[in-house]
Every structure is written in C-alpha cells, then in structure tokens.
C-alpha cells in the first residue's frame, strides 16, 4: 500500500481532502495521527545531521591554543587565529571568536568536540571522501548500495510497520542526502523551501489532483516509474505536515537564523520537531567550506573572509535552533552532529587558504550531550602528518555507531558488519562518551504494538 493511501485510511480522509488540508488542519489532529504510528527508532530521540560541505578547516574552528606548531610562522602565517583571540574551552582548546554562542553552549555542558575523526588512508577528493562519510565505508571496502542511515533503518526496523512519510527529512536542500538513500522500504522527502512545498493548481483543483493521484498509483513494474510514483506519494503524504509545521511561530527573534540553506533548514527542523511530528533523523547542509583562497580577508583573520563568515552562520543557526529546542522543552531529545568530508592542510597555501586535508573535528550538541573534548588532541607534528594533514585517531563510523547504539538503542553491526565493528568500532566507542543517555529505559518499537 502506498504511504499516502495507508495514511488516508488512518486519518479517515479522502485522497482529495488530503491534498487540501494543508495549513487548516489543527495540529492536535496531526499529532494524534503520528502518535498512533509505531516507531521503530525506539524512543522519541532525534538526530540532526549537519553537513559542512567542502572540507571545514577544523584547526581554525577549534584552535589548539597551546600548540606551538599552530602558532609557528611557517605553519599559518596569515590565517592563524591570533593567540588570545580564541574563546578558551580549556587549556588546550579554544573556539574561533565567531563561535561565541557555541562557546556558551559548551560552558553549559551541551557541546562536545570530537577531535581527530577520519579514517585510514584518507582520500583528498571531495567526492570520494564525501561518499565515505555518506555511505559509511572506507577505502578498503566496496561501496555499499545504500547510505549509512538507510542501512541502519533497514536493519533496525525489520518487521516494523511502514514508517511515517516524515520519518527522515532533508531540510533546506533540494536533494535527499546519500546517507538516507537506498533503503528498500523507505523513501525520504527533501524540502528545500517549506513555503513552496505544496501542490498548486490554477483551477479545477480536485479534478487535476485526482488525475495526478491516479497516475501515481503504485503498481507499475518499471523501476524508474515506480521510484517516481513513490516519491510523489511521499510528497502527497507530507505536504500537509510540512505546511502545519511551517505555520508554527518562531521562538527566537526574526533574523536569528542566517539566510540561506542552513538557516532555512534548521528553522524548518525546529518547526517539525516543535510540531510534534514523528521525524527521527534530519539532515541539513552548509556549503562553501572549500577554502583554497581568501579564507580570511587581508589582515583580518577573525571577522571577515569566507571561513569566519561560514562559522558566524553556523554559530547563529545552531544557537537559534538549540534555543528553540530549549524553550519548547525538546532539547533533551535532540542531538546535532556536524561532519565534513575532510579537514584541511595544517600549513596554509599561498592564497591565504588551505588545501584538502584529512582528519577533522566534529561537534555534537544538544541536551543529551555530555560536554567536553573527546578523541585526544590533534597532533600537528610534521612527523605525524599524512600528506601534510592530520592523521585520524577516531574512525567516523565509530561516531555513527555511538548514535545507533546509545541514542537509538540499535545495533551498529547491522549497518557496518561484524568485522568492522570488532576491528574498528568496538575499541573506539569507550572514548566516545559524549552522550549522557544510555540504552537503559529506552523503548523498542515493539513496545508500541
């Protein structure tokens, strides 16, 4: 049965009514409908994945403030963050001055930094490296056919009922991220702009929508057509929810979210969460981190230039989002994980920029986070570098596994295989104590039956 059809029955609405409910459906009806659905993710926990696309310069994000090599004139003569201008987290680490709000969240114990995340034999291509992070594999393995979150879902939710159409969501982006793609049972939606996420008809609305609905009824054998029909069904089943969510008023002043894809995405994520919808995994993206040149403006490493401005937007967006989560009582069930396909070279190049690097830092933020710095300190010693870049100490799959195991109460083995779990993940998990929650007390989806 198609998603939309199953949901028509649950809601007791005709297919045409479904199209046209949009913003007029009271939220409590929508919430009731969602609450009726079993959720294999085992609890009401939510993960927000935030992509920093292009390769974030982690060494200018979390500054190793006691490391003489970082401040050596031969390392980053123009782009280093001058000593003393960083915001100290502890004796070893400081945040870029454009991350003042995140520093406050750190002081409240709700931000964790995970250093040295990467993988063995790093690839310096954006696209190969992005594939590793999205599909959750490494150079020694064959590329899987589905993303890491899709594999987790397929394995963890075997036998579970069909999911809510909004179980996952790409927000502020016009593509479904590869990490969520490839499930055999679930097609996630992508919502670039909530305000245009509804079917428009100039006239004869009911008749036209009935025809579109009929044309996209499932049952064709052509896999290309079937994929399109499934996507249309996802759209039909999610437009009313998105419209309802987008009608929720902000809890932060206008302009708190930065303009652009990241701000639009985080704002919508907040609305969907506050609306009480059943979405468990979100994905938002901020582009522009490929800072080969003019990473800073001449003579001002702190305020202007591509990288400080990206960090400013990141800081503003995350702060607005976490504030809305706290004010709405959702903070404890939400964590945000940032990632980038690689860090950048330890030494700057001749263009006030940095070339492609390897290991990098990640942020984990939210009410369920045990704040602090994990993964050890970055080692900038030239003898320890890989192609002039930081070597990794924590495999990124271990970070993913941490969320699978201790946030969603699931089994990482299903997504990564026993061999990877035993040889890579199991040994690293004890270093990743950045979640306060434990599996204890979490419900499995079967308890909803």
């Amino acid at each position, binding site marked *: 049965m198609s998603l939309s059809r199953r949901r028509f029955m649950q809601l007791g609405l005709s297919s045409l009514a479904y199209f046209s409910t949009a913003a007029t459906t009271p939220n409590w009806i929508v919430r009731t409908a969602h609450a009726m659905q079993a959720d294999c993710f085992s609890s009401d926990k939510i993960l927000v994945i935030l992509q920093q696309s292009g390769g974030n310069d982690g060494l200018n994000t979390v500054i190793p403030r006691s490391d003489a090599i970082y401040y050596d004139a031969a390392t980053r003569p123009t782009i280093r963050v001058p000593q003393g201008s960083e915001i100290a987290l502890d004796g070893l680490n400081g945040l870029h001055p454009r991350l003042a709000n995140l520093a406050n969240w750190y002081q409240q114990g709700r931000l964790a930094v995970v250093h040295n995340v990467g993988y063995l034999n790093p690839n310096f291509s954006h696209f190969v490296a992005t594939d590793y992070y999205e599909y959750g594999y490494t150079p020694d393995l064959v590329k899987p056919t589905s993303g890491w979150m899709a594999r987790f879902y397929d394995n963890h939710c075997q036998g579970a009922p069909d999911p809510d159409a909004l179980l996952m969501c790409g927000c502020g982006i016009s593509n479904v991220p590869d990490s969520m793609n490839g499930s055999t049972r679930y097609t996630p939606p992508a919502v670039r702009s909530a305000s245009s*996420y509804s*079917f428009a008809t*100039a006239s004869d609305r009911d008749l036209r929508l009935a025809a579109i609905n009929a044309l996209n009824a499932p049952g064709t054998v052509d896999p290309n057509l079937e994929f399109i029909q499934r996507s249309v069904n996802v759209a039909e089943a999610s437009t009313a929810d998105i419209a309802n969510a987008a009608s929720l008023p902000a809890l932060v002043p206008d302009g708190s979210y930065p303009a652009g894809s990241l701000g639009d995405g985080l704002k919508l994520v907040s609305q969907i969460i506050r609306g009480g919808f059943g979405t468990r995994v979100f994905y938002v993206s901020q582009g522009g981190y490929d800072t080969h040149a003019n990473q800073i403006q001449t003579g001002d490493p702190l305020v202007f230039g591509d990288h400080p401005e990206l960090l400013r937007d990141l800081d503003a967006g995350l702060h607005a989002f976490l504030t809305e989560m706290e004010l709405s009582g959702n903070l404890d069930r939400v964590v945000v994980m940032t990632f980038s396909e690689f860090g950048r070279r330890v030494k700057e190049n001749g263009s006030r920029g940095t070339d492609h690097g390897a290991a990098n830092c990640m942020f984990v933020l939210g009410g369920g986070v045990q704040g602090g710095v994990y993964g050890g300190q970055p080692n900038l010693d030239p003898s320890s570098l890989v192609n002039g870049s930081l070597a990794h100490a924590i495999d990124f799959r271990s970070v993913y596994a941490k969320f699978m195991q201790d946030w969603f109460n699931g089994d990482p083995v299903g997504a990564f295989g026993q061999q990877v779990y035993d040889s890579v993940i199991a040994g690293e998990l004890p270093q990743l104590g950045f979640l306060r929650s434990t599996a204890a007390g979490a419900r499995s989806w079967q308890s909803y039956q």
Partner: protein
Amino acid sequence: MAWLDPYAGAWGEEEAAHLARRAGFGARVAELAALAATDRATAVDSFVDFPPVDQALEDAILALPDTTDGLRIKDPVRQNDLVGWWLFRFAKTNQPLQEQFALFLHDTLVSDFPKVATSITTSVNDGNDGSLAGQRCTTGTLAPDPNRKNRILNRMLRDQTNLFRVDGFGSYVELLKKVTRDPAMLFYLDNATNVVGKPQENYGREIMELFSMGVGNYTEADVKAVSRAFTGETVNNLCQADYPFTHLYDATKHDTNPKIVFGDSFNLPGPGEDTDYVVELIANWVSGADITPFHATLPATAIYMAWKFIKWFVHEDVPMDHAAVGELATFFRDSGFNVRETLRTLFNSAFFYDAAYRYAMYKHPIDYCTMALRTLGLEENGYAGTYASNILTMGMGPFNAPNVAGWNHGKAWINSGTLITRFNYANRLSGTGIATDAWVDAILASGEVANESDHAGLVEYFRRRMIQTALRPEEEAALAAFLDGIQSGTGSTTTKYRRKVRGLVHIFMTLPRYQLK
C-alpha cells in the same frame, strides 16, 4: 566494434523522438515528421553539424526589450538575469545539441556564480561610481556604473559558456587548454592565485579528478607537480579600461624548477608552455590503473570522458567498464579527442538505440522545462521569469552547481520536493499568462481536434507532442476521467474547452513517464 556499430533496426518516429530527446530538447511535431522521414545518419547530422554561432538566436536576444518577464536577459546584472539568458537560449536555440552539450560542459568544467563573485569583489576596487579615489586603481578613467562588478561577473561566466559553444565540439584537449586559461575558471578554482613557492592545488587536482581522468590515475605527488606547472596562469585585473579580466600569463609567478608528472620531468621556457605540456600529458596518460580493463591500453582521459558522454546521452547507470565505454574511448582517442565526431558515432550506434535505454533516463530539470516549452510551442509566451524562479528549486540552477563535480544525475533529480516544484512549474505553464486563450484556441483550429468535446483528439494532440509513444491504459483512463469530469460540470463549451486544455498541459507534465526521456 560491436556496440558502436551503426544501428540497423527500424527507423521511424519512435527512434527519431529518442534521438531528439537526448541530443536536443525533444522534437516538435513537424521536426519529428522530418526526422522520421529521412534516414538515421542524416537525422543525426542535423543535430551534430551546425555553425559555431546561432546567429538567429543572438539576433533574437539583441532584439529583446531591456526587461523580459522581469529579467534583464539582454544585459544581465543579477544572477537570475544570467540564468534567464541561458534558459532563453535553451527554449529558442536552433542548434539544440550545441546548448545541450554546452550544459554538459558547464556540468563538467564547472564554474559557479557565488565563488567568482567573491573573487571579483576581492579584485575590483573601484566603488562602482567611477571614482578612483582611494582605490587600488589610480590611473585611467572609468565611466560611472552602479552595476560594474555585476556586469564583469556576468560577462565572464557568459563568455565561459560561449567558449563551450564555440570550442566544445573540436578537440577536447584544446578545450582543456583554453578552459585552464578561462578567467572565470581561473577564479573559480583559484589558479589565479597559484604562484611559485606557494602553489595551491585546487585546479591541479580537479583538472585531473573531474575534467579529464577521474580518480585513481595519479598520485598526490602528481597533484602537487601539476599545480606547479600551472603557476603564473592568472587573470589580468590590472587597471585597464573597465577591468578587462582577461587571461594573463605572469612569468614572474611561474615555477621554473623541473616538475615531474607521471614520471616525466619537464620545465619548458616559453610562456604557458608548461601548461600546454602538462595538459597534453594528462590527456594522453595511460595509467594502467586497476579501474577498468581499458586502463591498460587507453588514456584515462579518453575512458573517463567517453563514459561521461554515455552517462549524459545514453544512461546514467552505464558502468565505466561497459564494453561500449571502451569502444567509444578508443574512437575518441583515435579521432584526436574530437568531440563532434565522437558524438556523431555515438548517436548513430546500435548502443544508443538499444531498447533498454529508451525512456529510461530521468530528465534533468532543464530538459523537463525546455522540452515542454518547445514541443508545446509555449516558448513565445512569457515563461522566462517562471522558469528562472523554479529551476533552482528543482535542483539545477545554471551557474549554481552544488560543487565542482557538478550536479548529481539520475535518481538524484527525483524526490518529493523537486517533484512538487516540477508539477507547480507545469501548473504555471498551464495558466492563462503563458497558455493564453489564443494559444489554447489555436489547438482547436489546428485540425487535429474535431471540436471542444473531442477528448480522444485532445489527448492525442498532447501525446504527439509530449510523450511520442503509446499511452498506457491506466494513463488513458486517468486523462479521460479528468476530461469527463470537466465535461459533466457547469460552464460554457468554450470555458470548459479551455479548462480541459490547460488541465491537460498540467497533467501530462505530471505523468511519471514525462519525468523520463
């Protein structure tokens, strides 16, 4: 040669329509009839052979008013103006392969608006008012122009696509040499700041990874050496009249130490000689990498580009080790990397017409929008603003690829949000502003529809333009139900007729099959 053998099967409207959907933007009814009535080779030639400049199109652009549907197409200032300029070209071109392939090259040799804009902002210091006081330029006179930076930016990106149109159909190696020196590219991948002693690797890496060979055929040491070979290739942003931003080879910034690429040590004395030499090295490098069996004997660039041609024109899921890729790569190398002859061979091949590939590719958003405009005859009717404002949300804004690898194709075009945007674009096309009463009523006068209540005739009218193969029973049933629904309602015969036609425009574009080509 097996896959590339000339196609020997039947030649008729189905085959001609397939060719037109892939090599161009679909065939209008009269065009389809003409293509089907000739032979395959002649039909292919009609797409592949064209003069470098589509003069009628250029004249049409020059004849535009200052503003078209809210866009300054004739003299672009904002990013959307430039987008509108290209979308106008897609809709109106008389040389559709030239525009389709320029889009392919734009998707391969990417430059985007925001990055080049940032570079220009860093470089252009005059305050747009013509004043040079306090600016880096202290000589010369510039006329006041509040949009100076925007015009420079638009001109650079426009000129880059013109490079693709004019030089894109000769030697791909020569095109690579030219794009290496293209001002927008020099900014986009930062080679403008790649200088001796402080090389920076952005262009050196991407030319090998994305523009020629693909990953796995070179080492990190090769990336560094290639980058050094490109030092000194930069942009002339000196204080000449109106900031020309032309290519400049700055010998003082060039690294004159030996470079070793693929084991070949070189250091050539003349201006730009290292650049040309290293591009030739890249294009001809037989890496022997364990990627496909072809890599043992063919240049990696021939393989990678042949594969990209096939993925764009035949099917996005054809794997690199498919025998057809090896055959096309062999032809491409033997032709001296000649794009025009390679595409001619591809469009004539049994491989191209294989039944498995027909209606099996997802249309990219520009296909989706452009084909509807052209085949319905709506390209005269004020679509440009709607088109430009929707294309980005469909995921394919020109000059706005997500990154240097270009757009993701195939299934990546299709999701709930992009389909809603496609369907809403269809709805806008079907509205009275674009599908005007005169346009709607002309269908009745075409002779293809007997009268306002000839439902079968109406469905057939749109089938011939939009699907060009048989409708399936469930498709016919849904369309008939829609028409019957209007017929049985209230309204005058004329009103109901117009509602039927506009509804059919919208609904045909929501057919699952209409997302395919």
